[in-house]
Structures are given as structure tokens and as C-alpha cells.
């Protein structure tokens, strides 16, 4: 037995166009909690998926208990004792707790008949070891998210896992539930299990972990002992580049207020959100995934129904609009998921561009295809979108070109306010900077712009003012000299005052 359970040596993984992992090495010792941190796209999820058998590496090797192994798939990983607890839980809600713990590996006799008693007893044992308050017979669908997570963790007990990987485990947990989870993690730790902990929340990282490995652009920036480091050092390692020459910020010349919301609430998603945005202003909205940022803008746009709140448009109070009304007023929303919310993938660029404004491209309900084509050409050229033609299905385009069509479909109607939700997620560097330049250009033309982003350099680089959100509430606002990484990290790493008071 060595003092290292799992060691990753020079793992490389390339996806078309991106080197997701570039000679990554790190190791996990028994009884330690090892944090994996980095910005979105730094390679954390690829690394953990490789460990869990969901990806096969292109190069390098994985040593488990000192011996090189190949993790063929998730089931093999689980049987070896490597367990991934994914942010989106992989459970069957209709099955019982016990059946979910042993999903696909139920104890049966020769004829495939379940050994129910064995299943229940083993599960009960695992649940008890974790101190769970529910029994093995409860249907998983009736449990809260935190309890469902415990079901997945119980797999660690049941399969005697040596390595457990947690991916953003606290994303949808309350404070109490988080304490409970940390207790469980310490419990596993004391049994000699090696734990990989992936999170954006720095206070948690410093609370629970022993070592921290920082990833950036697919490379390991270094591994440090948690006790011997501080937030500043980790942040520097995560960002590691100068922001000034990378982003273009629009001139700060603001006009009239375009949109103001007060006390906007949506049960279970966010509450009491108030802000305003002016002509020529770029307002950033920063927060962790699940903080409620997308839900706020989707509610303003009208795709979600609000539970309360007021909205002013160009200075006049109006009832909360439907999407159609929002669009006709001059609001545009580039949504978070371009494949699910932004584009009709089987349509071409031409038809996608005109989709929100069919009345502008028609007379008497008959489509004016000439006008449609001209507009398509104009934006395809202006945004330098690479396609083989106006009717090439956008599903065949790269992420960057797809995103440009989402922009085209909103820009062609000359909006007064454009909301960009994660506008550069998953696209190449070239398209990324083109979109950043476009944001500045639009603001200088007098549009009001709201940018949502999980990438700190981006949100700092393009915005005049940044609101930070945490757990469904706006917790802080920064502008001018206050726009620093430290401030943002600090603001989102803590509980919002209103929640803490509850």
C-alpha cells in the first residue's frame, strides 16, 4: 500500500479544436480532501469525467493503488471503487433508495430474482453509516435534493469506494444541509477515503479541503496545501493573466434609463431583485451557477411568470410583459443555452435570424423572402459568420458561429436593450473576443446591455457596473475601482445577509 490511492500522470485529452487537458498530473492520498479549482472551461469537468470512465484520455496514465488501470466506463469505475457524484444526480426517482444505491448492480439469485432482504440490509447499513434519517424503502422521488445526494454518497459506502469525486455538491443545498454534507465528507475522510472536491465557492474550499490543485486552460498551475495559502494566491493562480489588453470596454457615456425592475420575485428561484440599466451602459450580473441570474432575466423577458415585482420601460411603469411584448418593445435576450433556447437547430441561419421578428419580414402574413435574405446576408457579413449558405442547418456550425446567429437574430430588429446570458460559453477564443468587441460597440451606439457571465475576467472586462447574485438575491454592486476579482469572489463566496438571517 502506497500513500497515494489514485495518481494521474500527464493525462491529455483533446476535443475538436480544444486541448481540454494538457499533460495534467495530480494525486489523491487516502483520508484527504483534495480541491480542484479553476474557471469554467479550465478542464475540471473533463478531468473528473476521465477519472469516472466517461471519457477516455488521449495520453498519459492513471495509477490506482500503484497499478496502471484503464477506466472503461462508469460501472467499471464504480466497481473499482471510484465514484463520481455528479451535480445532476444520476438516480431513478421512481425506484427506492436501496434500489438506487445499487442501481444496475442489484443482488440477485441465478434467475434474476432480487435478494430484497440483502439489498435492504446492505443499503440500511450504508445509510446508517452516513447517519441518514431515511430508510432504504423510501421512493427517491419523494426526497429533497440534499437527501438524494446522500443516496449517491451511500453508494460510496455500499461499494466501499476508495475515491469519491464531488462536483459542485453544494450548488443546491441550504446552509444546514451543507453542514450535514461536510460532516459526511469528514466521516468518509476518517475512514481513509480519498476525496476530490470541485467547487467555485472559496469559503467552502478553505473550510473542508487539505490540498488545492488549480487548473487553468487545461494545465495544472500548481498544487498547494490549504493551510499554507490564502484566497489571493489561489485567485491569482486561477486567473493568471492581465485583463487590460484582452477586453475592450465601451466609453462610459450613459443616457436615459431604459429598464428598471423593483422587488422582482419568483418563488424558489430568486427574491426581491431591483436594479436599473441605462442607454450605453453595460451592466454585469455575476454569480455562481444556480444563483438565479438566468431566472431573473428570463422573468423580465416574460418566459417565466413572476410572483411579484414592478417594471419600468423607458421611464414608464408597465405590467410584466410576455416574450412577444418584450420583443416588440425592443428587448432582446440571448439565452444561456443556445442549443436548447436560442436556435432551431434544423433551420438555417436565414430562418433563425427572422424567427423572433416574423412580422418585420412579411406583409400581410406572407413572408418577404428577399428582405429576409438581405438581412441574413448583412449580418452574416457583419459578424463574419462562416456558413455554406443561408439554409445550411445551424446544427452543423461551430459553437461560435451558432452564437453569432443568436446575436444576429436579435440585432436585426435594432433592440434598445440586449441581455446576454453567458454569451461566450463554450466557444473558441476568436469568436469570444469578437463578441466582446461587439458588446462595446453596441453600448457605444446607445444600447443598454446586460451581461451575465460566470467568467470573472469577462464580466469585469466588459461591464461598467457589476451586480453579484448569490442564492437568489442580489448581494452587492460594484463599479469603477470596486471592480476587482477579489471583491467579486468575496461577494459570492458568502451567504447573502438576508439568507443568513433566516
Amino acid at each position, binding site marked *: 500500500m502506497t500513500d497515494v490511492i489514485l495518481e494521474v500522470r500527464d493525462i491529455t485529452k483533446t476535443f475538436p479544436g480544444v486541448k481540454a487537458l494538457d499533460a495534467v498530473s495530480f494525486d489523491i492520498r487516502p483520508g484527504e480532501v483534495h480541491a480542484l479549482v479553476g474557471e469554467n472551461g479550465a478542464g475540471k469537468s473533463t478531468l473528473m469525467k476521465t477519472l469516472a470512465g466517461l471519457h477516455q484520455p488521449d495520453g498519459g496514465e492513471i495509477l490506482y493503488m500503484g497499478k496502471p488501470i484503464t477506466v472503461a466506463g462508469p460501472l467499471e469505475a464504480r466497481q473499482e471503487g471510484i465514484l463520481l457524484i455528479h451535480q445532476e444526480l444520476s438516480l431513478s426517482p421512481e425506484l427506492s433508495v436501496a434500489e438506487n444505491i445499487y442501481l444496475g448492480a442489484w443482488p440477485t439469485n441465478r434467475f434474476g430474482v432480487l435478494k430484497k432482504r440483502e439489498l435492504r440490509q446492505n443499503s440500511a447499513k450504508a445509510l446508517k453509516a452516513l447517519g441518514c434519517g431515511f430508510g432504504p424503502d423510501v421512493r427517491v422521488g419523494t426526497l429533497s435534493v440534499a437527501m438524494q445526494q446522500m443516496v449517491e454518497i451511500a453508494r460510496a459506502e455500499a461499494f466501499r469506494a476508495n475515491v469519491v469525486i464531488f462536483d459542485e455538491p453544494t450548488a443546491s443545498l441550504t446552509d444546514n444541509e451543507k453542514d450535514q454534507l461536510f460532516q459526511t465528507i469528514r466521516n468518509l475522510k476518517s475512514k481513509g477515503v480519498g476525496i476530490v472536491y470541485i467547487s467555485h465557492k472559496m469559503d467552502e474550499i478553505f473550510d473542508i479541503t487539505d490540498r488545492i490543485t488549480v487548473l487553468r486552460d487545461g494545465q495544472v498551475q500548481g498544487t498547494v496545501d490549504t493551510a499554507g495559502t490564502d484566497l489571493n494566491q489561489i485567485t491569482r493562480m486561477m486567473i493568471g493573466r492581465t485583463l487590460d489588453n484582452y477586453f475592450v470596454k465601451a466609453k462610459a457615456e450613459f443616457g436615459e434609463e431604459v429598464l428598471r425592475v423593483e422587488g422582482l420575485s419568483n418563488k424558489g428561484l430568486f427574491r426581491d431583485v431591483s436594479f436599473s440599466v441605462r442607454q450605453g451602459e453595460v451592466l454585469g450580473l455575476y454569480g455562481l451557477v444556480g444563483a438565479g441570474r438566468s431566472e431573473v432575466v428570463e422573468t423580465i*423577458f416574460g*418566459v417565466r411568470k413572476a410572483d411579484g415585482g414592478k417594471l419600468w420601460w423607458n421611464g414608464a411603469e408597465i405590467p410584466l410583459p*410576455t*416574450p*412577444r411584448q*418584450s*420583443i*416588440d418593445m425592443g428587448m432582446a*435576450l440571448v*439565452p444561456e443555452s443556445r442549443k*436548447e*433556447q*436560442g*436556435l*432551431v*437547430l*434544423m*433551420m438555417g441561419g436565414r*430562418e433563425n435570424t*427572422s*424567427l*423572433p421578428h*416574423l*412580422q418585420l419580414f*412579411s406583409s400581410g*402574413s*406572407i*413572408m418577404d*423572402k428577399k428582405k429576409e435574405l438581405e438581412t441574413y446576408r448583412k449580418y452574416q457579413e457583419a459578424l463574419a459568420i462562416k456558413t455554406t449558405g443561408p439554409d445550411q442547418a445551424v446544427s452543423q456550425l461551430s459553437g461560435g458561429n451558432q452564437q453569432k446567429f443568436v446575436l444576429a*437574430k436579435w440585432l436585426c430588429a435594432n433592440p434598445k436593450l440586449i441581455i446576454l446570458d453567458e454569451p461566450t460559453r463554450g466557444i473558441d477564443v476568436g469568436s469570444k473576443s469578437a463578441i466582446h468587441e461587439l458588446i462595446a460597440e453596441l453600448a457605444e451606439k446607445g444600447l443598454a446591455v446586460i451581461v451575465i457571465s460566470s467568467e470573472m475576467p469577462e464580466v469585469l472586462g466588459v461591464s461598467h457596473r457589476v451586480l453579484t447574485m448569490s442564492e437568489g438575491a442580489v448581494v452587492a454592486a460594484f463599479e469603477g475601482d470596486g471592480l476587482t476579482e477579489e471583491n467579486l469572489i468575496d461577494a459570492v463566496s458568502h451567504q447573502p445577509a438576508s439568507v443568513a438571517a433566516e
Partner: protein
Amino acid sequence: MQDALKGLLRRHGLIVAFMVFLAGVALNTDAFLSAGNILDVLRQVSITGMMAVGVTFVVLTGRLDLSVGSMLTLLTVIVVDQHNQSGPLMAMIITLAAGCALGAINGVLVGYIGLNSLIVTLAMLSFLQGLVLFYSGGSNVNITNAQDTWFAVFGRASLFGIPVPVVMFLAAAAVAAFVLKFTTFGRQIYGVGGNETASVFSGIDSRRAVFWTYVISGLTTGLAAIIMGSRVMGAQNTIGQGYELTVLAGIILGGTSLLGGSGSIGRTVLGIAMLGFIQNGLLLLGFPYYVQWLVTWAVIIIAVWIDLGAKRGRIFA
């Protein structure tokens, strides 16, 4: 050259196979490709074709309509009965209005309330069958003055040598193709079927769009009922039984996806016509009529599989 042929086969394999079939039958029979026989086939498929035109709208949004068979029965009974009571013109107006109204009920349940379309229209299938018996009192209805009503035009007459039902079918198909291709409503339907969420994010009222597709489906079923009533000059209580499946088979065979967003009226017309020619060709070759069902089975599976395989880039899932 070989690549071009491969590409042609992959993209239009269905049409190529169909042409081969046509050629094969034509070589073995004299009458098959004569103008008379072709018109005959088109006349036979005009009722299912008319219905398929409307149902295509529903399928393009990713929904189903299984109620059109029962609806055809009911509307045929209505048109025949009203013909006796209120005269042909009134009968047609009432029939079309009833078709739209029944479609609207489906539309409210599926579009606005958001219930599963398969079950809703299945329930409607049963409900309408009951309504037929209620309306007709269980007996067949016949047009009393069959010899001297101009109503016979729709089922039996010809216009410039082309049967009137064929003209109606092709005219309806042309209008529908125009609506789908050139109007904002058509664009909305493809949007909703292709990606409902993205369409809602683009300000399209998907519930309203779905609602109207069912009304259209009801309307074309009304038109089909007029052809049926005129052709038969009467209506039995089971006259439309099973039509919903034939209609869907034609639409699927044409290559319109049940998932929505991809397909066209042209494809539907092709699919329906293929079903008609397969039936006719096999009969001319001397096979009993039920052999067409076996061939239809094979053709549906092969056609959809090839279509899917081409989109996916490999044959097996």
C-alpha cells in the same frame, strides 16, 4: 460519379426505390402508367391525402392526431344527413364548421391545456365514434335524391378530365404547401416543431400555433368528408375506421418526422401517392389486396430507417 450516385441514393433513396418499383410494375402490366390509371390512383388516395394534408400541420409541431378517422365518419354522416335536411350548400358549411369545431376541442386540450396529444386524440376517437352512433341512431344514412343533386360533383365528376376530388386534394395540398413555405404561420409551425423552447424564447405563442394546427386538421377532414359523402352518396357508421393510421403511415412514409420540425406537404403527397401506387401496382400484378399491407410494412421500416440513418450518419443507433 460513384459518389454522386451514392449521395443521390442516400438523399433520395426512397424516390429512387419508388421509381424502380414503378418501372418494374410498368414492365409487367400494360395499364399501370397510363394516364387513366394514374388518375384512378390519385382519385383513390384523394380522401386520405386530403386528411393527411391537415394532419401534416399537426405532426410538424411534434404532435399526433389519431381522431381524424372517427371525425371523418362523423362528418360524413353529418354531410349526408344535412344534405337531406338542409340542402347541399348548407350541409357543406355545417360540415366544415363542425370539423373546425372538433379540431378546436383537440387544439384546446393539447395546445392550451398541454395534455398528451396521443391520449387526447385517442379519447376523441372513442368519443366521436359514440357521437356518430348518437347522431345516426345506429343506422346508415343515404342521400335521398342521389340522382339529381349537384353534390355528386365532389366525388364523381371530372374537371378537364381530372377527377374533382383529385383537383380538390391537389389544390388543398398547394394551399397548405404555400402556407407552410411562405407565411409567418408556417414559419411558426416549423419553429415550434423544431425547438419549442427556442420558439417561445423568440416570442412565438406555441400554444396558439398548436391550437390552429388541430383546427386545420379538422377542416381538411371536413373536406375529405364532403368527398366521401359525395362519392358514396351515403355513410356507414364505420366508414372512416382506421383512416387515422393510413394517414399517419403516408405522412411517415413521406419522411416527415414524428418529432416535429422536419417534413413538408410535398413529402406527404409523395408518401400518400406511394401508398396508392403500391396498392394499385400490386393489384394489377394480380396480388390480393392485402399483400399491399405487407409491402407497406416493409417500406415504412426501410424508408424511415434509411432517413434516420442518413441524418445520424450511421445505420445503427
